[in-house]
């Protein structure tokens, strides 16, 4: 169990140009479920490897429960890690795999056996205990990797590095919800690295969105969805991402290039820079009144459809519920409460 803190942490790879990880301060509470979300090369894996001790940061400190562990090697940090590709010890049975970390730490056989059986029960591996690990499917191998972390009762944090990459969609659901349930039963800090927003949002209590070595926003899934602090977050989270419309502002009104005026829920001060109106496709609908739009194409996603629109020369996506007909001369309605203003890519707080 550990509260993990970063104190002016930064990292630059030797010979690399610039920072792989720009200086940051952050605290992850004990027993929290965190996700590090971002595209490849954003620094999320570097940060994970700094937590596990596989990489030593070039600046700053890592604290576990207040104690400086920056210089401690992996094996002395009490962290466990699940990798992208399942790592199992091929020649061992599932039981031996799960017992491996305990045996390495010299735990006597009887209590080790009890721990292994307990954890196998949690993971739904109890019936496979005496099978050879290499004959199992990818999802079960990932459970074993996770189990090797869980068997240690001193484990401070479990780190996941894109653990569902090689798992089929159907099994992903099973594994993901199992992981979430597990986190409730075993209150240990879990850190989950992924580029897949669905995985990040569904798994974590708090999601850390990263881009180009920087933490762009930290928040609950709702917060990231409702109030993206940055254009990047609006785009990266949601499928399709947030719509951004160039606009000018006049008090509590936004004026689109075509001259259309949109009432805003808040008034904004005079702002400099590039101004954009942000709204998610989920909060836009097609109806008989509103802004005139041209429908370019409708994507059928089964349970909903995405209307790709042209709004006075700007592309716009709106989400339509299943079964709702598209009007012949559709007009676009935007939920005013969900409109946000961005100046140079950053969310601007309105007044009142």
């Amino acid at each position: 169990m550990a509260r993990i803190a970063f104190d002016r942490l930064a990292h630059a790879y030797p010979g690399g140009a610039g920072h792989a990880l720009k200086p940051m301060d952050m605290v992850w509470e004990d027993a929290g479920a965190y996700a590090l979300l971002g595209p490849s090369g954003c620094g999320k894996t570097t940060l994970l490897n700094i937590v596990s001790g596989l990489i030593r940061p070039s600046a700053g400190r890592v604290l576990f429960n207040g104690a400086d562990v920056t210089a401690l090697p992996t094996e002395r940090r009490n962290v466990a890690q699940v990798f992208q590709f399942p790592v199992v010890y091929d020649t061992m049975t599932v039981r031996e795999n799960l017992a491996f970390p305990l045996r390495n730490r010299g735990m006597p056989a009887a209590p080790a056996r009890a721990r292994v059986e307990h954890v196998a029960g949690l993971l739904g591996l109890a019936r496979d205990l005496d099978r050879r690990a290499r004959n199992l499917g990818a999802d079960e191998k990932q459970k074993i990797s996770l189990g090797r972390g869980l068997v240690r009762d001193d484990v401070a944090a479990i780190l996941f590095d894109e653990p569902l990459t090689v798992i089929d969609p159907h099994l992903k659901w099973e594994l993901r919800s199992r992981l979430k349930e597990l986190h409730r039963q075993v209150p240990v800090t879990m850190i989950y690295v992924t580029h897949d927003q669905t995985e990040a949002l569904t798994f974590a209590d708090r999601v850390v969105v990263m881009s180009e070595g920087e933490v762009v926003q930290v928040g609950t899934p709702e917060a990231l969805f409702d109030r993206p602090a940055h254009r990047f977050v609006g785009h990266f989270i949601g499928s399709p991402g947030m719509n951004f419309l160039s606009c000018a502002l006049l008090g509590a009104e936004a004026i689109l290039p075509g001259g259309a005026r949109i009432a805003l829920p808040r008034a904004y001060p005079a702002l400099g820079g590039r101004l954009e109106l942000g709204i998610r496709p989920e909060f836009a609908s097609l109806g008989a009144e509103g802004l005139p739009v041209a429908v370019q194409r409708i994507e059928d996603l089964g349970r909903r459809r995405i209307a790709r629109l042209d709004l006075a020369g700007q592309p716009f996506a709106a989400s339509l519920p299943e079964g709702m007909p598209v009007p012949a001369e559709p007009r676009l309605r935007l939920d005013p409460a969900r409109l946000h203003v961005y100046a140079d890519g950053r969310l601007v707080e309105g007044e009142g």
Partner: protein
Amino acid sequence: MAKPRDDRAWGLVLPVLLLVAFSALIPMMTVVNYSVQDSFGNNQFFWNGTGWFRELLDPSTDLGGRFFDALWRTLLFSGLCLLIEIPLGIAVSLTLPRRGWGVAASLVLLALPLLIPWNVVGTIWQVFARRDIGLLGAAVNGLGIEYNYAQDPLAAWITVVAMDVWHWTSLVVLLCYAGLRAIPDAYYQAAKVDGAGAWAVFRAIQLPKLQRVLTIAVLLRFMDSFMIYTEPFVVTGGGPGNATTFLSIDLVKLALGQFDLGKAAAMSIVYNLIILTVCWVFFATTTRGQSEAVQGAGQEAGR
């Protein structure tokens, strides 16, 4: 109607088939022919059936006794070579650097003995181990240890085995090194996280992942050492006495020294069958249950 595949491709194989026929099949048939006949000079041959084979496999006869003595010697030699070279090769490969300029340097150094012609290896050791002028032989004798491979059977054995270890351990090292390099980093990281020490890492990850290259290494080293001829022949000539007369040396003595073509042919066929059988049994037992592992590895590599 399914159309046939392009069968003209077989034409491309024809030259190889002809070559194999000339280099292997025809000589082999000649040997089989000799093995069932007796000859009295002047190229006069008489049908002898399985006579040579019965004599060869009966240790109470002259031929049989000589054959089994040489066979045990050869087996002992192969066993010693494997016992030393495989663990030594694994150990050395584990200590090699994994990145940086050291990789290229050590690989080149290791490959050197493999590049020397076999008779030269023999000559090098023949001189190197001589008690009067050889660096090794003189040095050992200088320490007060009696060492003379030309007179003492034990010294001859030590010399021959040491020579083979020197010559061929590199091959095992290179194979193991390639195998080790193929293990994904995640395995080492996982082992670190699991608190595994060096020995546990070796047992749980490295040795299992080396299993396939080790199979190949053992096979190659067994075949080569079991058929060894040139190097010991150059160094000891099979002596002192018959102490290092391995099957191959004995075969040449029999065939070219005494010109007993029938006996020699029978011996070479049995010799050949032994090698084939041992290799096949070994390969079949070690690769059983590995097909899945191979598939798994393929998938992993594919991702």
